[in-house]
């Protein structure tokens, strides 16, 4: 899914043109802000994380290799790692206490008012919570499958299967909206 837009942004990044950051913000800002917020669970902190992440993206532009990862994967890694570092530095003491709060999963939709994403939010709610929890723990909380298994008190095998089924279900639910989303993000 390497689009013309992605290629254009990558070229600008590698030419040290700050227009790249503006474009990245317009196209991925909301998603990365959501990712940061899911990890740090605090909008103020999430703003700091997003700022730091974009500075890192700007500084590390040379290290992006389109043959190894999609642009979004790279952006996601930087944002997620920045958020995890932030969380550790801000809250080292209660680091151990961070747990998956199931109620968060249901609060997701209320945070965003982006009308074009409303359908998507509805779709997300169609994904059974047990899959959502596992996906979130793995993708956002910085847990390994082993850690998620211990933290959520779910056997490792179940974690693995829920991850696979969850992703498959997501794709199924999502199939119809992929095109819409693509168009939204390309505009």
């Amino acid at each position, binding site marked *: *899914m390497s689009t013309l837009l992605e290629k254009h942004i990558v070229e600008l990044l590698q030419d*040290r043109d*700050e227009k790249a*950051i*503006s474009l990245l*913000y*317009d196209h991925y*800002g*909301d*998603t*990365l*802000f*959501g*990712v940061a*917020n*899911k990890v740090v669970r605090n*909008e103020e902190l*999430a*703003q700091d994380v*997003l*700022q730091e992440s*974009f*500075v890192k993206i*700007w*500084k590390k532009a040379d290290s992006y290799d389109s043959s*190894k*990862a*999609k642009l*979004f*994967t790279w952006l*996601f*890694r930087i944002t*997620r*790692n920045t958020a995890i570092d932030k969380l550790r530095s801000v809250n080292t003491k209660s680091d151990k206490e961070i747990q998956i709060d199931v109620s968060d999963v249901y609060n*997701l939709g209320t*945070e*965003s*008012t*982006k009308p074009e*994403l409303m359908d*998507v*939010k509805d*779709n*997300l709610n169609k994904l059974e919570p047990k899959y959502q929890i596992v*996906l979130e723990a*793995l*993708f*956002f909380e*910085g847990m*390994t*499958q082993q850690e998620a298994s211990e933290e959520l008190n779910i056997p490792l095998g179940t974690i*693995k299967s829920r*991850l696979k089924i969850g*992703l498959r279900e*997501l*794709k199924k639910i*999502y199939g119809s909206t*992929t095109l819409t*989303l693509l168009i939204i*993000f390309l505009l």
Partner: protein
Amino acid sequence: MTDKIKKFLESDLLEKYLLGTTSTEETLKVERYIAIHPEVNKTYIELQDNLEIFAKLHAMDTPDGLKNKILDRVKAEKKSHSKFYRYIAVACSLAFLFAAASFFFWNQNKSLKEENTIVNNKMKTIEDNMKQQLEDVRNQFIVLNNPKTKRYNVKGNTKAKELKAVAYINPVKKLSYINVKNIPNLPEDKCLQMWAEVDGKMINIGIIKDISDKDKLLALPYGDNAVGYITIEPKGGNKTPTVENIVANISYAN
């Protein structure tokens, strides 16, 4: 699908790689699997797509003004970056200038030292020569003015009848000099060479170059029972005298 690939996909290495949490070793392994096995590559692409989809589901409106804050920070970063490189460039050129100047002065210092040594050596040589010449002149004066000095007229034998010389020997001061007054015409490839036999050893005194030397007194090594010889030698002089070519001898034994 082979068991190896199945096992790989069942491990969470690919997921860890997706999130960028693999170790260097693991990264290499995953990248090798992705490159070699199309199934792994396909799964990786799917995972990336799913991650993007999943992440976008959690998108949140960014607050107003955050974009400008970020752009300002990036611009500041860019400026300080270029400023940094400007400082580096200035520092580099300063360091280079300093190095060049250091080399220049070091080089100049070195050549001055060398010149100084040469001048010192020259001065010493001149001083030694002067001392030598002064000593010579002094000795000549002593020899010529001392009443004990004996004067010997030296004439060439049949091989060089035109040869005329005067030897001054002073046994008290142990000094001897010879003054060549006239030299015979010799073939182009011959010359006259002077020798002194002192204590049984033949000492080369030098070549009598031409008649312009006639006013010069040549010092002869002094020795009791010394004998002076003049021989005809090939041009440029000889290491040992050619006995059959002796044209004159000066015996200044007491």
